């Protein structure tokens, strides 16, 4: 439980194009321990996906890592050889992507695509890989005989299940799921969530769940990290953070969410718009939208402070807003 699987320290990533420079990550600190499931939540542009890609050393072109360290099981990812990287990606850490239509290759059958992972990382031959792929398909609820079908013959939900099958093929130590259900309907999303819950129990894989849906986090994760403008502004157990949010942004997010039960009170919208990564404000990046903003907030970046045993918040006031 205590072993650190993935450790990210002070990660800063900047995207440079001809037209603009965007600071996507501005000092992200994150640790995932063995067997832990962590939810990374934030609005679009907060840097959730960039964090995941950077930790696999898969930043797209134009992405520069300015500063920071990433360790996977104590090993520096930035100093890994090509071989070590290949072994890490897909084998020790695997990723499920948002859009199952674009993450699967349309000219290969699903059996070949799952088999590819197995042959690359486990050294299985064609026949063994097919057998194993069939077993994996059945684990995720797809009949084994569909092994030789192409992605276009499956529905959206089933494609995502194929993606999950390929993701768990090598029994990875860490599974990164990047908005795996955002493109799917509610009832199909429920299928995928139940499947992931079951796999969590069976495989005891660590999970990094990236989503903007707070409900999914509350169902699948133990810990949650809330991101805003390239920084983690609140971190803790899901129970702590959702029942007693301390950062004004987290409070705003929870208040802005229409509820399925209880009174239908007026929603509390967060004033202003999401910070633009091209022109980030000085000091605390949330200060232009924060109703508790002080002079200090405008000038200085607050540090992460511990408010409870397993609850941290990056705010000068430490989540105390009375009076």
């Amino acid at each position, binding site marked *: 439980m205590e072993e650190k699987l993935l450790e990210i320290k002070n990660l800063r990533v900047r995207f440079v194009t001809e037209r603009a420079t965007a600071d996507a990550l501005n000092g992200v600190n994150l640790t995932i321990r063995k067997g832990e499931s962590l939810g990374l939540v934030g609005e679009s542009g907060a840097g959730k996906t960039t964090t995941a890609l950077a930790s696999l050393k898969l930043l797209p072109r134009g992405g520069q890592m300015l500063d920071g360290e990433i360790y996977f099981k104590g090993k520096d990812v930035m100093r890994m050889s090509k071989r070590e990287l290949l072994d890490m990606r897909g084998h020790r850490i695997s990723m499920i992507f948002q859009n199952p239509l674009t993450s699967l290759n349309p000219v290969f059958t699903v059996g070949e695509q799952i088999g590819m992972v197995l042959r690359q990382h486990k050294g299985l031959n064609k026949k063994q890989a097919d057998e194993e792929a069939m077993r994996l398909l059945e684990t995720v609820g797809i009949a084994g005989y569909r092994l030789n079908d192409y992605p276009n013959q499956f529905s959206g939900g089933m494609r995502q299940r194929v993606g999950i099958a390929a993701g768990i093929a090598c029994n990875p130590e860490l599974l990164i799921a990047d908005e795996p259900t955002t493109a799917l309907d509610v009832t199909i999303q429920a299928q995928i969530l139940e499947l992931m819950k079951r796999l969590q129990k069976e495989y005891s894989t660590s999970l990094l769940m990236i989503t903007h849906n707070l409900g999914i986090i*509350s169902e699948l994760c133990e810990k949650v990290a809330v991101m805003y403008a390239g920084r983690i502004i609140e971190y803790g157990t899901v129970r702590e953070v959702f029942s007693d949010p301390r950062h004004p942004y987290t409070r705003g997010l929870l208040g802005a969410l229409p509820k399925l039960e209880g009174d239908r009170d007026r929603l509390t919208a967060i004033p202003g718009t*999401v910070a633009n990564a091209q022109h980030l404000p000085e000091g605390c990046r949330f200060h232009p939208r924060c109703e508790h903003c002080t002079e200090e907030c405008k000038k200085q970046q607050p540090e992460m402070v511990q408010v409870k045993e397993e609850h941290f918040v990056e705010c000068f006031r430490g989540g105390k807003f009375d009076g």
Partner: protein
Amino acid sequence: MAEKMENKSRKPLLEVRHLKKYFTIPRKGQLHAVDDVSFQVYPGETLGLVGESGCGKSTVGNVIMKLHKRTEGEMYLEGRDVFASDADKDAFCRKVQIIFLDPYSSLNPRKTIKDILSEPLLVQKIVKKGPELDKFLEELCETVGLSQDLLNHYPHELDGGMRQVVGIARALSLNPSFIVCDEPVSALDVSVQAKIINLLMDLQKERNLSYLFISHDLSVVRHISNRIAVMYLGQIVEMADTDMIFQNAMHPYTIALMSAVPKVSVDKKVNRIVLAGDVPSPMNPKPGCRFAPRCWMACPECSNKTPELTEMEPGHFVSCMYARESRERAKTAATVSVEKMMESQ
């Protein structure tokens, strides 16, 4: 209760009767996008229309807006037949407006915000170009909280939330009494979404607007609607007051849909009913209940007999033959096993 009775005695603003919209697909047959849908919307009321993608909810909105020709059915606005040959088309446009899902593609990128907002006013000859128009736009901007500096900008210079505000302003400019909101907040982030929902609700109070609010998000629909209609494969399967449907859903699809939404709660564990398979194609549907192939309480009878939308309690319509037992059975209904999922393929 008194309020509901009053509702009954009031005249509906918009009434849709047995609306059908079939698309003919060459060599494949008929796609039954909307198949016999009837509902009423009363003045000042929001009717929420929920369902998964492909269930026909947007098509209903488009047919109401006359963006699609109906296949069959009738529609009455303030008691007058909208499809009648002598109907006043301009008057219809003034009274019924639409807000679209995608604020990126629903605004013409080559026009400034001012052009976009003034076009309906000039077409309908409500104001003349010049100071009169400027004053009108000024008031319009104030109503929706749009900064006037933005009038001379182009849509791409605005963020998603602001663009949707422009969409709302455009819909409001003709002072309509009925607005079709087709997933107006689905493309927006949570914090912005809240702002738009609040704006829509404030405007409704101020101007006694009626909304047909189309969305796939149950929690948003619950928040904004007075009544909710749940659609599945082109048909309304359940319709009732918001509180009634959330406390006492009777159709097995509604029950499953509600249990499927992941909730932000720390303690409660719900018995989730996971539906097997996907939404089937609305192409040449078979007789019988459309939901039967995925239903967790289907009987052989269900695939033969087509259930009717029946009033189970005052104001609560359900189209299921076993609606009375569904809640009892939902308590013990198991989540679908992997084997069952595979069978359904």
